């Protein structure tokens, strides 16, 4: 079942379309990523989905086309640059936000869940960046949402806090919450998302799984090794997976796609050659974005 359907979405600020014809749909239970460089229109897109902005054109259907007020009841939203009052305590914030919803989740259990049990009496201003983000996620979940929209939630976190947050998101998905994740971190998108919408300058570039996107890069695989001087590279070049072979002294570099490493090692074994320093590199989402848009996402 599709929980979010976005069709031909356009949104104009002043005279510029910051979102210019974006369409995608999110299936129930998946982690769907919206990935793109800063200023690509990702946040504006999800703000339209969340009912916080009115699109200039196109349609947004959430959970089969709920009304705006009803959407806010069923959607948990964590926005960039949003905050809580400095002196509110963790448990007070949770209790207050739980009171906003008709059927709230158990906020006490949620505090435990996001690992803030020890901080329940701490004031918001005293929390670390990672703790604030975890509270923010808990607040997004306190209404028992079917869909959670999380915007740039690991920006500014240290690597450990980022990994903890990723784990939390995977748990939440395991509970059956569909997640729409906005990010400009390749690693995050690759690790968490089932499918991604690549957005650049307000336009949709591609929608696919991370692997699917990477596979669109030509010669996405590269295998390098050292071989004896007598080794003939011609049989390698004939393999269907191989698109190019370069030799530089003892060093051989094979580029191609698909199951390249397996194909190369099998061919080497048949030739009775033992490769040294065998290495395989795979293209990343970064490469995919570069290949699809001609520019790099800066992280």
């Amino acid at each position: 079942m599709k929980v979010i359907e976005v069709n031909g979405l356009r949104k104009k600020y002043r005279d510029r379309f910051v979102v210019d014809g974006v369409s995608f749909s999110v299936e129930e239970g998946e982690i769907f990523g919206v990935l793109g460089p800063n200023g690509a229109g990702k946040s504006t897109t999800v703000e339209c989905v969340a009912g916080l902005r009115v699109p200039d054109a196109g349609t947004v259907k959430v959970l089969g086309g709920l009304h705006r007020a009803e959407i806010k009841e069923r959607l948990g939203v964590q926005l960039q640059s949003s905050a809580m009052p400095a002196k509110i305590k963790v448990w007070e914030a949770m209790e207050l936000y739980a009171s906003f919803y008709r059927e709230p989740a158990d906020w006490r259990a949620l505090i435990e869940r996001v690992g803030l049990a020890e901080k329940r009496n701490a004031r918001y201003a005293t929390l670390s960046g990672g703790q604030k983000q975890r509270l923010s996620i808990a607040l997004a979940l306190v209404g028992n949402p079917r869909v959670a929209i999380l915007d740039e939630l690991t920006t500014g976190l240290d690597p450990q806090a980022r990994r903890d947050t990723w784990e939390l998101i995977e748990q939440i998905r395991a509970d059956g919450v569909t997640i729409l994740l906005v990010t400009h971190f390749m690693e995050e998108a690759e690790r968490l998302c089932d499918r991604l919408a690549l957005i650049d300058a307000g336009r949709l570039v591609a929608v696919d799984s991370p692997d699917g996107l990477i596979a669109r890069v030509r010669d996405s695989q590269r295998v390098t090794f050292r071989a004896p001087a007598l080794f003939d590279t011609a049989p390698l070049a004939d393999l269907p997976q191989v698109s190019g072979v370069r030799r530089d002294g003892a060093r051989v570099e094979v580029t191609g796609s698909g199951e390249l490493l397996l194909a190369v090692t099998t061919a080497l074994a048949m030739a009775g050659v033992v490769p040294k320093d065998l290495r395989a590199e795979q293209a990343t989402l970064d490469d995919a974005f570069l290949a699809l848009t001609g520019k790099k996402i800066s992280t």
Partner: protein
Amino acid sequence: MIIMEAKLFLRDPAGPIFAILLPLGLLLGLGSIPSFQEASAEMGGQRVIDTQLPGMMVILSVVTMALSALPAVLVAYRESGILRRLSTTPVPPVRLLIAQVVNNIGVAVLSTVLLIVLGHVTIGVPLPGSPLAFVGVFLLGTASLLGLGLLIAAVAPSVKSASGIGSLLMFPLLFVGGMWIPREMLPDLVRRIGDFLPLAPFAQALRDTWAGHAPQPLHLVVMAGTVLVTVVLAIRLFRWE
């Protein structure tokens, strides 16, 4: 939400304490000056502590809350993204404004009760002569100043500019209201201008009802008009982000 905001309010007590203690201190301090306790011919045979001083202290307290505390808090809420966060929930953010306004009225009421009771007990300030009319005027006048405060919060782009605009409005309004020089002694023109600004009618109507007279209809109309205009404008101009 109202209770929560009140709790937060008390955790940052500088504003309310200022709004309560400053007028109270001034009332008791100035009210102890012997000449203020004697009937003055310039004030039509009234004593300064009869209505002028306590009336102005009530106004000072309300004005501090309405024009300085309220806009600063609301603009800070907008600046830091608290309103943005709230806008993602089913609760309309207007409720936060209402909670804030209710709390500010609470502080103003508390301050006024303290002024009346302590003023009466210690320096013999008379109790309001027409209590019901006094309460009515107090609420209407407080609403008009809070409306002005909301309007400042609606248009001020930052906390700094909010407090700047607040003070900029506060001092001339207090002047024409008779804060430093009793209204009876102000030049005629200034007094006439003051009649049409929200604060002076509030001050005059408070003093009238304190003395046991009926408030002047013009003053009530000006206050009610201020409430209407500022609240409508504030709602239309308020930016949530």
